[in-house]
């Protein structure tokens, strides 16, 4: 009897399954499936006509992208919704790999009103020539983390210029007398983060990789100033000589071990510093966060990060997928992601949300940094541009190329990448 009942139940489930729209969401292992899973369960409970399941794969942005490259090159509709890195929408738009979202709004004005609550940085990346290709899931940026205890000990306020940072780092290193204490740490390995290392110095010197007319401007006084600053960090000894092998996570670990005064890193590092980490922390409660310093007379700037929800244009159910997308980008969902996964919200309203601030009080100090975050080059050829910048940068940090050689190589490489 029991068995028959179970059988009928399974049949009923299958039958209902056939009537429902089946959707699949693809996320990476780093995007907290343990939090996104329950979020989708809740959507299923509220929307009986849609069943959303999810697939997890790829531990880094590059690996996730490689998987999606395969899926989308073969025009497969197996996945309906996916998360893409903030550096990708332009390429997805050019390749026709993301469903334009304007169609789901009554008018373009309605769309702009809907986007009002989102931070400007992620929207700049997702809105290409008036067409919206993705909705921000959460955002990120590079922050200046510092040892609040050490700065306080020597009576310093967080630095606002690179010169101040150097002076403070040198003073603390000398006074502490610890040969293992690094003044300033950042990323110089052959990785995506090194593109930000370069651009942040360039932006805070008043430069940019491209001028208003669209020509690449990497051999400029501003760019030379940026690289001269990194030369100086190595020459003055505030930075370790092996910076060419420092990746994002390595630099996070060194700060976490208490060996660094100032470090540039992404939002995820905060939770690690406070003890929610795979390795012990020596700096819990001793960390401050500030906007990046700049050169005298110029504004602070930082690289934007974060992830976007997009719809697969090869999906058979784009209308249903839009409902899921709207749900995932809603303030309620972003609140859950912020509270339970420490993901930095992409909606302005959540920065004074009591529930968010109770769980992540540091988001209040993140806001000033996030609001000024700038996009890396928005181009369909970002992968090439990224390599054209980070490879010479890495060679520069390895002392293989001088600053001028590195800049010339970058200029040539970026021009080649955009010349098609």
């Amino acid at each position, binding site marked *: 009897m029991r068995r028959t009942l179970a059988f009928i139940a399974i049949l009923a489930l299958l039958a209902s399954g056939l009537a429902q729209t089946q959707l699949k969401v693809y996320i990476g292992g780093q995007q907290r499936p343990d939090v996104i899973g329950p979020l989708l369960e809740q959507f299923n409970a509220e929307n009986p006509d849609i069943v959303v399941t999810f697939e997890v794969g790829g531990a880094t942005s*590059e690996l996730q*992208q*490689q998987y999606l*490259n395969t899926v989308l*090159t073969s025009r497969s509709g197996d996945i309906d919704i996916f998360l893409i890195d903030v550096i990708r929408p332009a*390429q997805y738009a*050019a*390749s*026709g790999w993301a469903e334009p979202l304007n169609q789901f709004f009554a008018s373009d004005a309605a769309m702009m009103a809907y986007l009002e609550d989102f931070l400007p940085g992620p929207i700049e990346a997702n809105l290409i020539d008036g067409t919206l290709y993705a909705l921000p899931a959460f955002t990120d940026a590079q922050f200046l983390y510092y040892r609040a205890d050490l700065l306080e000990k020597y009576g310093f306020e967080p630095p606002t210029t690179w010169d101040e940072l150097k002076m403070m780092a040198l003073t603390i290193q000398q006074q502490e007398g610890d040969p293992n204490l690094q003044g300033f740490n950042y990323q110089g*390995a*052959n*990785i995506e983060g090194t593109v930000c290392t370069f651009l942040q110095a360039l932006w805070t010197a008043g430069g940019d990789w491209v001028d208003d007319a669209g020509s690449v401007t990497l051999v400029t006084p501003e760019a030379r100033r940026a690289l001269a600053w990194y030369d100086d960090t190595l020459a003055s000894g505030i930075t*370790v*000589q*092996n*910076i*060419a*092998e420092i990746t994002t996570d*390595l630099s996070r670990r*060194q700060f976490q071990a208490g060996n660094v005064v100032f470090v540039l890193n992404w939002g995820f590092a905060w939770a690690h510093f406070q003890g929610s980490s795979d390795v012990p922390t020596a700096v819990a409660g001793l960390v401050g966060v500030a906007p990046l310093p700049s050169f005298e007379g110029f504004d602070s700037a930082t690289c934007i990060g974060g992830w976007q929800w997009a719809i697969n244009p090869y999906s058979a159910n784009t209308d249903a997928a839009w409902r899921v997308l709207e749900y995932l980008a809603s303030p309620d969902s972003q609140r859950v992601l912020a509270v339970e996964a420490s993901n930095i919200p992409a909606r302005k309203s959540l920065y004074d949300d009591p529930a968010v601030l109770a769980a992540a009080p540091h988001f209040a100090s993140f806001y000033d940094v996030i609001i000024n975050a700038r996009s890396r080059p928005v181009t*369909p*050829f970002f*992968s*090439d541009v990224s*390599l054209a910048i980070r*490879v*010479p940068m*890495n*060679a520069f*940090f*390895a*002392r*293989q*190329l001088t600053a001028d050689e590195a800049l010339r190589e970058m200029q040539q490489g970026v021009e080649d990448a955009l010349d*098609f």
Partner: protein
Amino acid sequence: MALTTPTAYRSPGLWRRLRSGNLTEAQLGIILLIPAAAVLLLVMFWPIVQVLWQSLHFERLNLPARGRPFIGLEHFQRMLWGTEMAWSPQHLLGWRLLAFAAVGGLWWGTGRGTVRRRTAVIWTVVALLVAGLWMGFHPGEAGRWGDARFWNAFSITLLVTVASVAGSFLVGLPLALLANVESRWRWLVRIALLIPWAMPRVLVGIMFAWLFNSTNGVINDVLRRLGVEGPLWLARADPAIWATNITIVWATSAFVGLILLAGLQSIDESLYEAAMVDGASPWQRFWQITLPLLRPSIAVALIFRTLTAIQTYDIPYAMTRGGPGRTLETLGIYVANTTNSLNLGYAAALSVALFTMSLAVTVLYLRWIYADD
């Protein structure tokens, strides 16, 4: 009574034999081979044909408006030759032309039987190495043809191949000899042979990147305790080449060791006994008995090692992602980077170049093995 004329014996058709199970051995063999051959055709030859075809097309997924036009050999022209061919003195006087000329002459000579084949093979390898390395490391752009990044990757691939294959034999042969000695500690050597072989390459790469890390790594820590300031292993070009090759040798000499060990165990003990009776020294026994009899195993190990070395991707990628700069961007890494930049046409052309290198090496080795026949 009608005479029954004897009809000529007709062998039953294949289908009949198949049903009755009365097949000749050759027929059975062919039938049994069909599934394997079909699978091979499907998963090996078909992709090869597709990549060849793809390499003749322009296809960039981030430029879908351009479509996938047939462009003939344009990718290969860009790679090897360049679009603007400049006949500067450097181009003409480059060693490579001399080297290629030497190769041509030698092969012609072997065809006529005037040059010994083995000499020709050795000279070909040397000439190609000189030419290849010169192509990539020629100072200044003026001496280069085509895609500088391709020639850089090509030279690095050659360098890694020569260094790591030689290294893995230098380490693998003694290991195999040790593992073949009757001793209480033989199990230890055998385990040492098996562990690196069984470990995934990416894991090896990440592990050694930590060991070689210049501030936190074990290697520099040991050096520091000995009073030596170690190099910035992965943060400078030259030590990074060393570090990567040492890692590749560590990971691959076990494979060489295992194959050579199998070869050693097939050598008849009585040969050594006879040699000892004749008063041969251990050194003589090694050179006169072990090494010559080991030749087939050495050839097998050499072919497999060289082919995997040409396709090197995993360890340099895991250790430095091909850095610092492009110091360790092997052809394999270049192909992967180009694919991820969605330039599928050029990536296919680069894969064809990689495939050609592997094929050339295989042909050379086969000629070497059958040189005496």
